[in-house]
C-alpha cells in the first residue's frame, strides 16, 4: 500500500491518516523517512492532485536531518492518530514545540508493553494492536532483528517536554516474566531501543482467578523492624508481608497478581500496576511536623511515593518510589502530601536497584527478595534471602513446624513435650532455685534452654502438690524463661523441681495444632491426645521427631465409650 493512499495533506498543512484502523485489513504503517520522501515527491509536482494539497507552489513540508529524524516545517504537522501509523524515527514539528520519538522494543513476539509517562500508564496503547493477519500483537515487528514493536511516542507538546521525556517501559503479563526498561534521561531523537524480557515464568503457573482469591496474604506498610536472621538485632524493611498459609512461591505469585497489568489493587497508595518498589534512599534532616507512615511526597522538580521513613517525627532516612521528575538533591525540601510535614535532603540520595516483580525472584521454593522487601520472620525458610534497607543480605534460620493432625476442635486436648526413651521427658530441666514468691516472673533452670525452643510458648513446672502447672512464657534467654506474674507463695515449686517445655499444650482449636521452632538438630517429641468428654476416646500416645523438614503426627481417635 502506498503511503499516499493512507495519508492526506490538507489545505491547512495538516497531514492526516485516512487509512484503515489498527487490526483491520489495509491498515498502513510507514517509516518517518517514507513520510518525508512522499512529501518531497509531492512538493515538486506541478500541481496538487487528489486529497493532497501539495505542489511546487506550496511551502516546503519537511526537512531530513537524518533518515530517522524528520522535521515537519513551515506549519506542516501530523496529529496523534497519524503518528500511530509511523515508526522508525522522530518527527519534530511546530518549530520543535512537538516531538514524537521513535521506539523499538527488543523482545520476544507478543510482548505486551506498557508505557508509563509522567507517572501514569499511557492508556492508548495502540502499539499493542495485532496487525491484520498476524499471530501476535505488536505493530511493525521485525522478528529477524528481534523487534516486537516499532512506533513513535509523543514526548514533547506545547513547547514543553512531557516529564523531561522520561519513559518507563514495562511488561507485566500473567504467567510471563515481568520486565522494565527506563529511559531515565529522556528519549533521544531517532529510534530509542528498549529491551524487555518476555518469557514464560515457570514459577507463575497458577490460574489468575485462583490467585485472586488469596486475599489473606497481607502487608503492613511502612518502616518495619524484623529480626529475619534471628540474631536479636532486628533489621529494617519497608514492608512486612504475611504469607499466611501459602507457600513462598504462591506468595510470589500473589505479588505478581497485585502488580500485574490491569491490576485494581492499591499498594502504598498507588495502583499496583504502577508500583515498582524503592527507587531512592534519601538521607534527610531538619524534619518538621509528623509524616505519615507512607504518603505522597513532592519537591521542586519531582514527586514520589514515600514507602518508609525511619521516624515520622525525627527522620534521618526516607525511602521513596520516584513517580515524576528527578530525584531531589541536597538541601531540597521534601513535603508530605497528606501530612504537610517537611524535611530536607542531607547530601546523600542513593538510587536503588529494582526487581521485577517488585518482591524479587522466586526459585520455586525460595525467594530472593528485592531491596528492602520484608516478610514476617516466621514466614521465611532457611533458603529465603532478603535484603534490608541497608541492602545487606539477611537469611532466615530454618524454621520448622511440627503438626499434630486428626484432631477434633474443641474436644481433644493435645500435649506435645520432649521425649526421653519414648516417654514424656518430665525433667527436661530442673529448677535452679525454688519458686516461692507471690509474683514470680522468671523461671531459672539449671541447663541452657535449647536454641530450638519457640520464642513464646508454655512450660510445665512440678509443684509441691505433684501436679505440673502450665505457664505461658513470653520470652527466654540463656537459662531463664520469662512468664507472666504468678503466685508461687503456696503450692511452691521446689529447688530442682522438674520442668519441661510443652510445645503444644491446649485444647485443640482446629483439626490440627502445630508449633514452629528453629531447627538445630533432630528433637524427639512425645505426643499425647485425650478426650474425656461425652464422646471419649482412648488416650493416643506416640513419639515423633522435629527434623530439618519439620514433622507431624496424626492422632488416632479410637472411641472409648
Amino acid at each position: 500500500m502506498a503511503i499516499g493512499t493512507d495519508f492526506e495533506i490538507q489545505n491547512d498543512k495538516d497531514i492526516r491518516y485516512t487509512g484503515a484502523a489498527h487490526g483491520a485489513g489495509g491498515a498502513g504503517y510507514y517509516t518517518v523517512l517514507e513520510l518525508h520522501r512522499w512529501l518531497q515527491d509531492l512538493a515538486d509536482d506541478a500541481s496538487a492532485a487528489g486529497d493532497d494539497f501539495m505542489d511546487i507552489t506550496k511551502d516546503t513540508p519537511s526537512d531530513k536531518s537524518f533518515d530517522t529524524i524528520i522535521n515537519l516545517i513551515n506549519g506542516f504537522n501530523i496529529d496523534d492518530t497519524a503518528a500511530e501509523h509511523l515508526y522508525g524515527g522522530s518527527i519534530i514539528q511546530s518549530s520543535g514545540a512537538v516531538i514524537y520519538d521513535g521506539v523499538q522494543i527488543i523482545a520476544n513476539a507478543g510482548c505486551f508493553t506498557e508505557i508509563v509517562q509522567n507517572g501514569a500508564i499511557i492508556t492508548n496503547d495502540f502499539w499493542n494492536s495485532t496487525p491484520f493477519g498476524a499471530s501476535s500483537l505488536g505493530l511493525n515487528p521485525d522478528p529477524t532483528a528481534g523487534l516486537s514493536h516499532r512506533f513513535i511516542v509523543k514526548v514533547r507538546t506545547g513547547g514543553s517536554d512531557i516529564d523531561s521525556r522520561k519513559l518507563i517501559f514495562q511488561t507485566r503479563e500473567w504467567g510471563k516474566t515481568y520486565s522494565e526498561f527506563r529511559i531515565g534521561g529522556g528519549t533521544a531523537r531517532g529510534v530509542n531501543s528498549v529491551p524487555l524480557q518476555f518469557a514464560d515464568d515457570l514459577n507463575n503457573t497458577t490460574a489468575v482467578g485462583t490467585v485472586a482469591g488469596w486475599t489473606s496474604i497481607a502487608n503492613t506498610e511502612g518502616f518495619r523492624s524484623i529480626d529475619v536472621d534471628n540474631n536479636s538485632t532486628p533489621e529494617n524493611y519497608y514492608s512486612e508481608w504475611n504469607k499466611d498459609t501459602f507457600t513462598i512461591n504462591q506468595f510470589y505469585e500473589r505479588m505478581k497478581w497485585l502488580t500485574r497489568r490491569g491490576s485494581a489493587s492499591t499498594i502504598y497508595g498507588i495502583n499496583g500496576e504502577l508500583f515498582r518498589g524503592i527507587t531512592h534512599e534519601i538521607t534527610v534532616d531538619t524534619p518538621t511536623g509528623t509524616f505519615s507512615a507512607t504518603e505522597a511526597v513532592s519537591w521542586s522538580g519531582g514527586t514520589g511515593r514515600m514507602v518508609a521513613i525511619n521516624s515520622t517525627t525525627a527522620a534521618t532516612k526516607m525511602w521513596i518510589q520516584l513517580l515524576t521528575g528527578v530525584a531531589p538533591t541536597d538541601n531540597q525540601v521534601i513535603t508530605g502530601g497528606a501530612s504537610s510535614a517537611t524535611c530536607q535532603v542531607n547530601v546523600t540520595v542513593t538510587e536503588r536497584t529494582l526487581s521485577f516483580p517488585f518482591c524479587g525472584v522466586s526459585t520455586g521454593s525460595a525467594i530472593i527478595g528485592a531491596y528492602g522487601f520484608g516478610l514476617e520472620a516466621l514466614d521465611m525458610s532457611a533458603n529465603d534471602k532478603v535484603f534490608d534497607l541497608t541492602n545487606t543480605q539477611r537469611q532466615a534460620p530454618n524454621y520448622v513446624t511440627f503438626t499434630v493432625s486428626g484432631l477434633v476442635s474443641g474436644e481433644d486436648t493435645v500435649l506435645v513435650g520432649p521425649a526421653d526413651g519414648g516417654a514424656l521427658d518430665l525433667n527436661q530441666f530442673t529448677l535452679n532455685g525454688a519458686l516461692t514468691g507471690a509474683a514470680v516472673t522468671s523461671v531459672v533452670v539449671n541447663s541452657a534452654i535449647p536454641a530450638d525452643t519457640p520464642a513464646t510458648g508454655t512450660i510445665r513446672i512440678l509443684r509441691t502438690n505433684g501436679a505440673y502447672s502450665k505457664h505461658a512464657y513470653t520470652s527466654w534467654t540463656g537459662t531463664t524463661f520469662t512468664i507472666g506474674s504468678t503466685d508461687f507463695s503456696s503450692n511452691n515449686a521446689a529447688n530442682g523441681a522438674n520442668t519441661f517445655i510443652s510445645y503444644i499444650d491446649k485444647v485443640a482449636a482446629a483439626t490440627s495444632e502445630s508449633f514452629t521452632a528453629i531447627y538445630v538438630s533432630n528433637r524427639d517429641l512425645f505426643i499425647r491426645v485425650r478426650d474425656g468428654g461425652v464422646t471419649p476416646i482412648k488416650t493416643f500416645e506416640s513419639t515423633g521427631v522435629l527434623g530439618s523438614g519439620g514433622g507431624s503426627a496424626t492422632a488416632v481417635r479410637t472411641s472409648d465409650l
Partner: protein
Amino acid sequence: MAITIDWATKIISVPQSDLVLISGNKYYLDVDTFRLALKDLEDSEEGMAFPMTHNHNSVVVLSGVSYARVVEIINGYTVSFENTGTPYSVRLQGANNNIFDVTNVIANVSVIVTNSAGLIETGGGSSNPWSAIVAANNTAGTFGERIQKLLTKAQFLGTK
C-alpha cells in the same frame, strides 16, 4: 465432692457422695461412670502430664451375648474410698475390674467384688489344668506345688 486424683501419690479418691445408695449402709460404685470420671480428669490441664489411669475394654457382643466391659486400673494408681467414720460397704458393679486389687485399706469401708468370669485363661494356656506344664505351677499353696513335693517311687524306696 467428686472423684479426685492426687497426681503425686497416684491415689484416686472416691467420696461416698459419688456412690449410689442401695439401702442402709450399702452402696455401689458404677464402674463405667467411675472410669469416665477418670477420663475426664486425665484430659484436664493437670492430668495431661500424667500417664493414663486405666485400661478399658468395652462391652462385646458375641453370638448374641453381651460380655461385660473390663476396667483395669494401671500405672500404679490406687483407689481410696472415703472414710466417713461410719462403716459401709461398696459393691463394684457395671464392669469386671481390678479395683479391689488396688484399693487402699480404709477403715470402715468394705469392698465387694462382683466380677463374673465366663471362659477364663489359665497359666497353662488352656482351660484344662491337667494339661498344664508341672514346672510352671509351683506357686506356694497350690495343687501344683503339692504335686511336685510328692515323693517319687525311687525316693520312697530310698527312704526305706
